[in-house]
């Protein structure tokens, strides 16, 4: 287990420091760019501006503007270019500012990048990373707040990563960059300032391995990205009423570490899946189905799913707040599953 929760209980040893998730991502990129000259960054306002979220600020100074490259506002065009570049000797990391804009690159990612290796009988490879964002609550309205990772998770040939801590973000991003397949890396905009301890020495985290963020016996809370923080907060509330919740972060929706999820639920016999994507036909459906099938005879309650309310995301604060899963919602759901009230 490797979470801020865990680390902060002990004095952080000399070999670690506190980083924000944004800093951890920048560090992963910088380390990989130093290690491998084929790695470069393409995106809108990534160079001097360091992206609109300032996550990359400083990278263009160290690596120059021909490895941290500002592009026109042509998501399909520069993603397609990156696919070709990845096939021919480079390892591009493409930056898609808001996750909503992946709607513009679905052909390049799903019809091209995801299929090139298979269609060519295994001859061409596409070592491409697409970094993009998800998450609402920023009062950015319907076209700048979506969490659309379910679309990519549905496409064979892609891998999909959703880090929930600075530690995971760094280790997973380094693995994604070294992976020979197209990998989409979703960062929650609201988590860029989330702090956590990160070792100074190098490490990577394999794609496809879930992480138990907190262990417990009464109920399993499966959560992705920022919902992991929501689940951990709910777990604390549950502890106060005597319910011991286990929190599991799959970390990658594809590949999916089914075994860890199923084993946990076999132990707890209750599960809630929390994800910030739209509630219907999303990530919670797949994970809930995997659990319901794999732990069927152990479940004493149906697997409960909690996603973003199934509506376009409204601007008005009281309305937007009503669409996002909260620790209170998770707490209530868990309490009723555990029949405590």
């Amino acid at each position, binding site marked *: 287990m490797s979470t801020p929760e865990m680390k902060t209980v002990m004095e952080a040893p000399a070999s670690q420091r506190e980083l924000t998730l944004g800093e951890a991502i920048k560090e992963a990129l910088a380390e990989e760019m130093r290690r491998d000259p084929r790695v470069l960054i393409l995106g809108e306002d990534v160079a001097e501006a360091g992206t609109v979220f300032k996550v990359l600020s400083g990278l263009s100074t160290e690596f120059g503007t021909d490895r941290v490259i500002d592009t026109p506002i042509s998501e*399909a065009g520069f993603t397609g270019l990156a696919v070709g570049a990845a096939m021919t000797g480079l390892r591009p990391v493409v930056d898609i500012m808001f996750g909503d804009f992946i709607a513009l690159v679905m052909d390049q990612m799903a019809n091209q990048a995801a299929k090139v290796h298979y269609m060519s009988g295994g001859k061409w490879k596409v070592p491409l990373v697409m970094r993009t964002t998800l998450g609402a609550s920023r009062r950015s309205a319907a076209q*700048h707040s979506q969490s659309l990772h379910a679309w990519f998770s549905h496409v064979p040939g892609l891998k999909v990563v959703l880090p929930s801590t600075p530690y995971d973000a760094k280790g997973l991003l380094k693995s994604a960059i070294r992976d020979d397949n197209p990998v989409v890396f979703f960062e929650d905009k609201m988590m860029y300032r989330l702090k956590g301890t990160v070792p100074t020495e190098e490490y990577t985290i394999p794609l496809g391995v879930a992480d138990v963020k907190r262990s417990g016996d009464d109920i399993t809370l499966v959560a992705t990205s920022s919902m992991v923080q929501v689940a951990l907060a709910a777990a604390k509330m549950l502890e106060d009423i005597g319910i011991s919740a286990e929190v599991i972060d799959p970390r990658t929706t594809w590949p999916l570490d089914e075994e860890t999820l199923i084993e946990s639920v076999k132990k707890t016999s209750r599960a809630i899946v929390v994800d910030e994507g739209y509630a219907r036909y999303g990530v919670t459906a797949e994970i809930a189905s995997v659990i319901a099938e794999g732990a069927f005879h152990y479940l004493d309650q149906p697997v409960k799913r909690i996603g973003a*309310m199934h509506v376009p995301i409204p601007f008005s604060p009281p309305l937007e707040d009503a669409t996002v899963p909260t620790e209170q919602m998770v707490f209530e759901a868990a309490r009723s599953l555990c029949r405590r009230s």
Partner: protein
Amino acid sequence: MAKKTKKTSEPELSTAGKSDHLLQMYRQMLAIRFFEERVNDLYTRAIMPGLAHLYIGEEAIAVGICSALRSDDYITSTHRGHGHCLAKGASPDRMFAELLGKEAGYCRGKGGSMHIADPATGNLGANAIVGGSAGIATGAAFSAKRLGNGRVAVCFFGEGALGQGVLYETMNLAQLWKLPVIYVCENNTYNEYTHYSETTAGDVLARPRAFGIFAERVDGQDVRAVYVAAKSVVDKARNGDGPAFLLCDTYRYRGHHVGDVSREYYRSKQEEQKWVSERDPIKFFGDWLIAEKHADTAQLQKISAEVASNIDAAVQFAMAAPFPETREVQQDVYA
């Protein structure tokens, strides 16, 4: 883009005509300027949720174009859309209400700054996807032609949208089918924090022209020049001559959005100062109005005072207005 900006000669000016019309344009430009200043103020005072992209410095374009439109003509707008919406006839009170997420807002608070829409003024909606309204505007022109209602559609976008392929797909359709749509490119020289010369190859005007679309460069700081250019292409489109493209040179005085305050890393204070002091569209037009005796200083001050109190009242209205009921969140997902 060497082509020199077209001087607006007297005969054309007469099209712009009568003083009241000119003063109305002046009033609208001021309204946009004051509106945006209050938006910035509401943001800095943490009263407005989220962000907003201010139109300050670009007012002559929205006003010049919309003055050449009928109230039932259509527009589509952008993330930097307040000016377009106001110029097309939106009222500041319901605009502010929308920016504050209030039920009295044009979209009942559901849209916010980047999505103001209003059928009553032909506003098909601002759009937060760069280039995202090219199809919608072209489709509205398609309807206008089909239904024979004589309407024209204007698609406002920044020069950054030249990077979106859908713009070329729709310009091709518009010219093939001779649709009454005017593409208005507001070139304020920056795509967010990147100068457009780093993102834009070749000659911008040659792009629409390659599709056979009439295209013209206009001084976006001169409301009369914009009006004259707009009037001529709008009338032509209405008469069935098909689409046109206007490239309006302009500059945004403020940050890309209200939070973009330290900008030296991408543009110099001097550059900003030069535009503000030498090319301000409101001052330029005001001076001209006085010089040409369409108004005197007192009249302009009176207009300014009226607009200011109007904007004040609008802010008061919006701040006092209630938020929508939470249950509204599930309304209007489906018609």
